[in-house]
Structure formats: structure tokens, C-alpha cells
């Protein structure tokens, strides 16, 4: 058997993919545990997963579509917002869950070794259930409003993947920050609130004036949500330049999150 050497790691920290492969099942196990607990503790868990996006959709449709009469790119306003709520809620839930994930698992972190990156990642994965539930609702709504999916639908997995990366990037940052700075807990709800208005959730990004588009697209969620609308509703294709900006911002977020996380990871068990 080969010997493993444990010592202080120096310099840039690489990711041990082989080790992650060994622990691959743990990603699902932790996510499964979170889901199990969520639905065990509250039978209303599932109901909430259904009601929350629906309620939000109704509010947005009434205020932005009905009262403010914002354009809806030719689809019913409820569908317009609900399509955006899909990735947005996933992102927001991930932010909530992952920011608390390390601290919430401090008991295992201080007593068992496993690749630490699994914890925030699983927190993001556990949001997939809510996402799936919302997705089913969306399909129902599309039937109801007679919105036919187009061939663009085939690109949806790509944008789901991007949503995942964006959520993970933020999750890595917040979870690691939360180990050292316990006031992150208070900052997250504020970030979510603000993020919702800086992303095209309640409105279509077509209302953003062209000269601001670049800055607006620095928000990674803009690319994701526009992509979702393009895939599902056949909305006008996102401007490729802006999509590029969004995606690059997302990659930057993810990579910097990874670096910060890996750097802080070494002392999690000592200070958590």
C-alpha cells in the first residue's frame, strides 16, 4: 500500500480530485440528509416549496405587470416572472443554506476528516429538490397558459449548470466567511433582497437601457435568468456580449470563492 504524507500545505492549494472521487457519495449523502431533515421537521416543507414561488409570482405579476405595466416580452407576466424565479429561488436558497453550512456542521468538522468542500457543495445540491418542484409547477403553468416550449429548451441544462456554478461560487465565499465572521448571518438576507432587484426577476431585462447593459450584466444572475427565459419562453436571445460578461463575472466569482475557501479551509477545525 502506498504511503500518504500529511503535512502543512504551502503555497497555492490544489484540489485533490482523486480524493473527491473517493468521497463522491458523500456529496449526495449530505444533501440527502439536509433534505430529509427539512421535510421531516416540517411537513409543510413541501407545501412551502410550492407556495413560496407561486406567491412571489402573483405579487410580481400584480405589481410589475399589472400596476406598473412593464413589458412582458409577449408572454403572460406570471410565466415571465416564474421562469426567472426558478433560478433565482435556487440561487437564494443556496445562499441561505450554504452560508450556514460549515458552522452548522461544526460537530463533524472538528471530529472527522473529509474534504471540506463537500459541505457547501451539498448545501447547494440540496436546493435541487425545490428547484425540481418549481420546475414541475412551471410545466403545469405553461400548459395552462398554452406556452409552447421551443427547441431552445435543449440548452436549458447549460443554464442550469451556470446557475449551479453561480450558487456554488457565492456559497463558497459565504460559508468560509461565516466561519470567521459570524455577522455574515445578518448580511445574507440583505444580499438576497438587494440581489433580487438587481436581477431581472420581477421584470424583463429588456427594460434596462442599452448604455447600462454592460454594468448590469456584471451580475452573473443576469446571464442565467436571460438564458432561462430564452430556453423556456423563446424570449429574444440574450445579447452574446452581455452573456459573455455575465459568464465571466460568474467564473471570477467561482474561482475567487474557491481560492478563498481553500485558503481558509486549513484552519476551519481550529477556529470554528
Amino acid at each position, binding site marked *: *500500500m*502506498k*504511503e*500518504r*504524507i*500529511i*503535512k*502543512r*500545505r504551502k503555497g497555492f492549494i490544489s484540489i485533490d480530485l482523486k480524493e473527491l472521487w*473517493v*468521497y463522491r*457519495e*458523500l456529496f449526495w*449523502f449530505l444533501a440527502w*440528509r439536509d433534505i*430529509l*431533515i427539512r421535510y*421531516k*421537521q416540517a411537513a409543510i416543507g413541501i407545501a412551502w416549496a410550492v407556495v413560496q414561488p407561486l406567491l412571489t409570482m402573483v405579487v410580481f405579476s400584480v405589481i410589475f405587470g399589472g400596476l406598473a405595466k412593464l413589458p412582458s416580452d409577449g408572454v403572460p407576466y406570471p410565466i415571465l416572472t416564474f421562469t426567472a424565479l426558478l433560478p433565482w429561488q435556487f440561487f437564494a436558497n443556496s445562499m441561505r443554506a450554504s452560508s450556514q453550512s460549515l458552522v452548522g456542521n461544526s*460537530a*463533524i*468538522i*472538528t*471530529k*472527522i*476528516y*473529509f474534504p471540506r468542500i463537500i459541505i457547501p457543495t451539498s448545501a447547494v445540491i440540496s436546493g435541487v429538490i425545490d428547484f425540481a418542484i418549481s420546475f414541475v409547477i412551471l410545466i403545469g403553468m405553461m400548459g395552462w397558459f398554452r406556452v409552447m416550449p421551443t427547441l431552445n429548451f435543449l440548452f436549458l441544462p447549460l443554464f442550469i449548470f451556470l446557475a449551479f456554478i453561480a450558487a456554488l461560487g457565492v456559497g463558497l465565499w459565504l460559508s468560509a*466567511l461565516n466561519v*470567521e*465572521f*459570524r*455577522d*455574515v448571518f445578518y*448580511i445574507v438576507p440583505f444580499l438576497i433582497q438587494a440581489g433580487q432587484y438587481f436581477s431581472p426577476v420581477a421584470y424583463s431585462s429588456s427594460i434596462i437601457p442599452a448604455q447600462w447593459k454592460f454594468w448590469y450584466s456584471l451580475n452573473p444572475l443576469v446571464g442565467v435568468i436571460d438564458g432561462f427565459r430564452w430556453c423556456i419562453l423563446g424570449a429574444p436571445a440574450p445579447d452574446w456580449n452581455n452573456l459573455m460578461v455575465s459568464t465571466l463575472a460568474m467564473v471570477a466569482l467561482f474561482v475567487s470563492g474557491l481560492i*478563498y475557501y481553500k*485558503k481558509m479551509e*486549513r*484552519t476551519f*477545525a*481550529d*477556529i470554528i
Partner: protein
Amino acid sequence: MTHKKSAITIDDLGKRYLLGSGGGERYRALRDVIVNGITGLFKRDRSQQEQKEFWALRNVSLRVEEGKSFGVIGRNGAGKSTLLKLISQITEPTEGEIRLRGRVASLLEVGTGFHPELTGRENIFMNGSIMGMTNAEIKRKFDEIVDFAEIAKFLDTPVKRYSSGMYVRLAFAVAAHLETEILLIDEVLAVGDAKFQKKCLSKMENVSASGKTIMFVSHNMASVKNLCSKCIWLDSGRVKMIDDADKVIDSYLLAGEEMGAQKVWNDQDAPQNSWVKMRSVRLLNESEEPAANFKTSEPVLIELVFEVADDGNRIVTGYHMFRRGTFLFSASDQDHNEEKNIRYGKGVHKVVCVVPANLLNYGEHNLEFVIGVNNAQIKTGEVLSFRVFNDYPTEWLGEVRPKLEWRI
């Protein structure tokens, strides 16, 4: 040379902690960092760097042969748990290196990784998976684990409803049955009842006989002697001795370093003055048997026996309680009416103080006894040590965990 390969090789290992970390009030506020500039994110706080550092472990080198059991002994705070944490990769060494041959399963605290809401069955899979087992491997061992833990009937009950005994049994069973080559066990058997402790020890003997390497931390010298062929004695993070277990344990006991659950003084070395002399102190459980391990739900009885030379002295007895080096409280039989403090006449007296159940938090506690006579005082220094274990699966923050009345 054909000597056996070593499973664990440690070279000049050291771990440095910042004093005062691991507490609650030390967290920084992100708000301050944002105000002071983003560069602070990647640095530890300046004020923290100015904090005192200390070596929980230093210059430790050892070798454990494959299939052997290795004991780790030493006083509280000697660095035993730190050593296991380094080997199991939970925390990173500050210097030196560890070479391992094989996978490691560790049981550093009871119920590690158990989630109170999940059932026994779910927790077995969860726990195994955290230790790096695949689903298939856990399935293969599942029946054996359940069998050993004797929890078949409660497999589908959430573990929060388990008694602390069942809890340890399951935790131990999972760690001991997983297909790893190296097993690290830190002082967890103390919680279970005597019968189960025996069972665990004999299981560890089997495990060791079947070729697994074991590293075993314990304050129970008899079980270390029984199980381990070699042993290391740590003292304030340094190696005091590494040798055959028998030899190390004998020297350790001779050195009288181990603070125990009782202390009896002989005439000369007893703390004393011309009026009083301490005779003995000890800890008892609810059934008034000597004990060193308590559950949070159990009372701790503290007994002090002392001898008074004359009638008519104002005498007050008491003690100081420490938890992990923090002064928790002092207790005394003092009466505010000074006159009433004349109540111990000539002769030998025994007083017992009952620390109620559900007051102390988990962890190591030390006691120092004090007797005040007239205006003088005699003190024992920290002479007794005991450990409190969590009945409740999750850790409770704070130095004490009183059970209070809640009006809801």
C-alpha cells in the same frame, strides 16, 4: 532487514494554536473588515497575531507498526486529542509530517457525525460515508454494526431518542466495523456502562488481531495496558516517554501525574495548619460510588474529609471548580452569620457537596479544595479531576449548561 512495515510514522510533529481561539467571543465582524479594507480578508486579524501562541504538541516522533495497538496517555491538556486530530487530518500540522499507510477511521467523540433527527439506520450510512466508505462497503458491514450495537429494535428511531448508552454503542460500532486499516479511538468508552466497555475492549482486541492498527487514548491505565503493546506518554505537548506499554504506564503512575477521582493524603504531605488537616477528597456518583466520569444529567457528589484539632474554631470548607482551565465557581458551606461557622468540633468530619444534575457542561473539570480556619486558609491545589459527558447529542455552548425553568 525484514521488520514489519509501519502504518503510522510521525516525524517531529508540531501543532501551534493561538491562545484563546476556539471560544465564542473571538469572532471578528465582517463589517469591520469592510470598513478597514478588503485586504484584511486574507489575513488573520492583526490583534490575533499579537495573541499568545502556544504549542499543543511539539517534537513528537513515533512509529506504529502495522497491526499493532498503540496507547496514548498523559494528563488533561497534554495534547492527546490533538495528536489524533492531526493523524486523522482534521487539523493541519504546523510542522513535521505524518506518513500513513491505509485509511483512517476515527472516533474522537461520541456520536460524531450523528444527526439527532435521523434514524439509527440513516445515521449509520451517513457516518460511514463521512468516513470515506462507499455505500456498498457500508451495506456489507451493516448487519454486523447493528448486531454489535444491540440496537436492532431501534434502527428506525431517530437517534435523539436514544439513551446515551445506545448512542455510544452505535458510534463505536460504526467506527470499529468500517473497513479501514487504521482506527483512532479517543476516550469515548468511558461513557458506556462497564459491560459495554468490556465488549468494546474485546472488540478492539479482535480488530487488532485481524491486522488493523489502533491508536488508543485513555485515562484508564488498565485498558491501555491490556490492549496496547507500545505506548506514548505526552506531557504538555512533548514526548515524555515512548516504550513498551507496561513500562510507560508504570512510570506514569509512579510519577503520580494522573489526577483522579480521589486523593488520600498521608500525615506528612496533607495540606494542613495547626488547626485542621485534610484527610481525603473524592468524587461520588448518585449511588455514592467513586466515579470520575459523569453524565450531564447526573449529580456530582464532592466529598471532603478533614480533621480538626480543637473545639471552638471558625471553620469554613469549600472548593473551586475549574472547567478546561476556566475558573467556573467557588462553593462553600459558609454561613453569613459568622457565629454559626463554629460547628466542626475536635475530630474527623466528612462533608459532601452535591452539584446538581444538569448544571455542568461537558468536558474536563478540576477541583481545588480550600478550608478556612479563623483567618487562615489551607488549599490543596487542583487535586481532583473528572469528566462530564454530554447526554444530549449536540454540543452546548458555554461554560455551564444549567437546566432552567422556562415559562412558555
